[in-house]
């Protein structure tokens, strides 16, 4: 006979079973995300958060992501979706960054993920920067910071955070660079300069050098072509300099969009006034890419003119990039004018610097050199 007691007993058993089966995932989703916790954000009311990593300061609703597509709000907490999840891990010459005055001729292990906090219409790495982590999930790797550092050590290379904007994977970059510095590896990153000062200062503790894109020198250009703002980039440049880290500036000259020589002159004056004359400046040749595929490459003479302006402004190391065979791909001693680093494109053929000085006239050459 089916008694009341039996009924209660069985009901309890079933309920307990159901609880045991259903509760753990529920509990875990409450307490632990599958993603890595993010730094630099502020919790707001109604489970919203304000990301304070880059200039955008995205206010992110619950279960949504910021502009960069890789920082997600889960239940009022912010997570980095791409921590330990690089989409590209590639060995490159350090010159490819470009980074010319820091351990020239060495290799770096470059790390990039999906996403970006800019939306440049001419991006060369748009496959990564304009994709979501989900779109790249089949191609992404799983690598802990330790694994990345060990991989770099095995390849006898340094570390660089590049391809897409590394700001957006700040936590991953920070952890890797911390381990990298501990083990004596070269650590650099290539940024669009949109990071806020607090995370930047903390990150710089682990970094030896930074390459910053100064994409143009008008607010309009930043707004229209990169969907960003210029002022934070200038602040970043000043901060890196004041923190005493090695800094190189890149300006990609794009025909019709940012090739006005007056603007270039203004930019060079600003660099001299704010960063000094020793910061190397790279004027890179544009070649058609992404949504700007129908634009022509920058004329070499335009790059030469920009270079002349920079030199006249007082900048001592001005390079012309993406133009293989160009004389000013190489480094010349500002004192004796002899070629002290011979490069073709990003290949170093010869280095004539000893202990940080020109081998010919012993003039000190600013940079970070291997002894």
């Amino acid at each position: 006979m089916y008694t009341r007691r039996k009924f209660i007993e069985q009901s309890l058993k079933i309920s307990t079973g159901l609880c045991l089966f259903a509760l753990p995932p529920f509990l875990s989703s409450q307490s632990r995300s599958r993603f890595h916790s993010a730094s630099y954000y502020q919790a707001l009311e109604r489970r919203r958060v304000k990301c304070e990593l880059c200039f955008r300061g995205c206010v992110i609703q619950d279960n949504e992501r910021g502009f960069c597509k890789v920082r997600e709000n889960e239940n009022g907490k912010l997570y980095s979706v791409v921590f330990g999840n690089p989409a590209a891990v590639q060995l490159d010459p350090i010159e490819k960054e470009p980074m010319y005055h820091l351990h020239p001729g060495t290799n770096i292990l470059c790390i990039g993920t999906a996403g970006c906090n800019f939306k440049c219409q001419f991006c060369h790495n748009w496959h990564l920067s304009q994709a979501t982590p989900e779109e790249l999930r089949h191609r992404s790797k799983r690598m802990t910071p330790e694994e990345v550092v060990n991989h770099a050590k095995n390849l006898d290379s340094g570390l660089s955070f590049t391809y897409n904007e590394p700001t957006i994977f700040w936590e991953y970059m920070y952890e890797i660079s911390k381990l990298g510095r501990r083990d004596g590896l070269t650590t650099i990153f290539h940024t669009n300069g949109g990071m806020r000062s607090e995370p930047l200062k903390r990150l710089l503790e682990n970094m030896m050098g930074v390459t910053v894109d100064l994409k143009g020198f008008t607010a309009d250009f930043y707004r229209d072509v990169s969907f960003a703002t210029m002022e934070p980039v200038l602040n970043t440049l000043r901060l890196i300099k004041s923190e005493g880290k090695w800094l190189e500036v890149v300006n990609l000259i794009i025909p019709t969009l940012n090739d006005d020589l007056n603007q270039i002159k203004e930019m060079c004056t600003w660099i001299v006034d704010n960063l000094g004359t020793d910061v190397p400046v790279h004027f890179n040749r544009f070649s058609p890419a992404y949504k700007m595929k129908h634009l022509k490459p920058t004329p070499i003479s335009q790059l030469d003119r920009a270079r002349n302006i920079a030199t006249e402004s007082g900048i001592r190391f001005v390079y012309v990039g993406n133009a293989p065979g160009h004389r000013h791909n190489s480094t010349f001693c500002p004192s004796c004018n002899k070629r002290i680093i011979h490069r073709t494109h990003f290949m170093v053929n010869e280095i004539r610097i000893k202990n940080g000085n020109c081998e010919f006239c012993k003039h000190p050459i600013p940079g970070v050199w291997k002894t």
Partner: protein
Amino acid sequence: MENINWLRSKGIDFAIFVMGFTSLSWQFIIVREMLVTFHGNEFTIGIIFANWLLLEAVGCYLWRKKAESIKKPLVFFISIQLLIGFLALLSVTLLRSTKYIFEIPLGEVLGLHIVALISLVILAPVSISKGALFPLASRNLGMIKNKPNAASEVYLIEAIGSFVAGLIFIFYLIERFDHFTIITIIFLLNIFSVVLLLHSQKIYSRVKILSLVFGLLILSVTIFSSTKWLNEKTAKLLWYEYSLLTTENSVYSNIAVIESENEFTFFQNGAPFITIPSPLFFVEEKAHIPLLLHPQPENVLLIGRGVGGLVNEILKHRVKSIKYAEQDPLVIQLTQKFLTPLTESEINSEKLSVVNIEGRRFVKTSDNKYDCILITLPIPTTLQLNRFFTLEFFEILNTRLNKNGIVAISVAGSETFLTDELEKLNNTIYRTLKSAFPFVRVVVGEMNIFIASNEKLVLDDVSIMKQRLKERNIQAGLINEFYLDYKFDESRFKSIEAAIIKGDNAVLNSDKTPNAVFQSLLFHTSIVSPTLVDILKTIDSIPISLYMLILIVIFVGLIISQLKRKNNLYIDTAILTTGFTSIVIYLVLIFYFQIYFGNVYHYVGLLTAFFMLGSAIGAYFGNKRRFKNLVKIESGFILLIVALSLFTLIEVDIALMQIIIFSTMILIGALTGFEFPIAVKKYQDVNDFKSQNSSKLYSLDLFGAFFGALLTGVVFVPTIGIAATLVLLLMIKIGSISLVLIGKK
């Protein structure tokens, strides 16, 4: 009196002839203009055609009743005819100004949705007006000739006008005049026709006609005298950010040359294709890596972009001869016109010989053998480009190699990361090459270079290449021993090369299943309209069985409806499916032409003229009283589709194929033209005749064509291929004939 009647009847005939002439000429012009503005491929052409047909159908449908009721149909007809002349001028001007007005940077590749929207707006005034002309022409012809239904005759005369336009356009106008001059000539023709019509109808006094003629002539002379100015000004608007040196049309394409800092950039149909001097990283790898892999390259064949740097780099290897196949003589003419020291030395080199023959045809027809064949073309986003990436072509190349010969093909790539779309495209090219050559390797880069040979390649031993670099004393900006070390360092690019070679599910790319085209289009779309990529991938994953199921459901529904209501649904369906079928076969034939001959831009006018010729012949016979059998004509379509499907299965000789394509073009035109008057007669038979019904049929024909153009260009051919498209077409016409058989009872 008879004379007057003759004159009246010929006046309206001529006006309708001019209507057909204007319509087709205008189509040619606007398609070419849009190709330049949007840098078109099959997708864009499909969209432009579809928009055109849709708008014309809308115009016709909206005016079908109004044309019946208005009091002065002739005045409306004349006014719209003249208006089209103006609107044609206006829309070309507007199209060329679009980028300037909306501040669209010239270098930006536009998304397909933007292309669709802009073309819809630009085409609307002329296309809708043109659509409205059909019912008006039918009404006027009916009134003048006292025929109750004149639509079939309008259809016939319009087809003749289009046929003549096709011939004149291809053989005369396009090579001699710019687009504005052609539009003005057409406008003058319209004025002449209007005057003739007014004079023949005697509804206005001579003074009125003369003053109108005078006014219009002054206007047209003004336009005529300023076409050069207009052409130049609007061309400058189109290239507003650049200093434009010239823009010229050849029968193959439009070529614009801009100058900046003594560097010239050539744009073909709106996209840059040569910069002189070319950036070294564009040319040095493409020339030196393959040539360094060969022990002694003497004879080189170059297909693609040659002058401006590549030839100069090849010459550094002390080769004996370079054959450079460049289809369009205008490219070389303009290179000579805007000479630089580099191009001068290249063109004057005794070792270089330029052959003005399309590359594939040249390889096929000449027996020359080469040590190195370099293919430097953009990725195959069109069937024309795909001719150089197919198994059939690779197999021909294999027979044109000397011992140790090498084929090198560049395809978009990346040193860092391959997207899904790019990886699949590279997988396909690899697999296709591997099916034609025993040894294939990939040199990874921003431009991957596929090297294929019948002998083992020396890619793994970079010291051999460095040795040859030294022996040949090659001085280059990019390529040196350090760069070769970097380029062939296994630790850098091995994983990317492995991903390209792996491609477990890689498909073959052949002439008739142009898989690489869809993959290239997907890659292109992932840049310009990323949201569309998922839609296209979904479409791609739809099996043909689902399309079949949809068709079965539609036709079962139509048959049930026909059985219940016993109305004219079967006639409407026959015309709608005919519009669909004719444009699908028309496009398939154009694609075939492209696959076999590769210069459809030259012959599209002639092919269209043949279609219109067939259409006119069909309409002529269809107008005869004794032909009334819709079943026979529908069976004709079925037979034609079956015959055409057979050609997808067998390999046909190139000369025979030419005959097949042109005669099928006439046949499909004839069947289409034949059916329209029969359908009109069917309506008459059931005493349901109103003139507006024939306009409805005409717009149904156009609606069918609209769906056909859109689905063939964008969905069917790129995803399921030509053969499967024809199977679907067969089902559609079988459904249609079933409906006709039921409807007849």
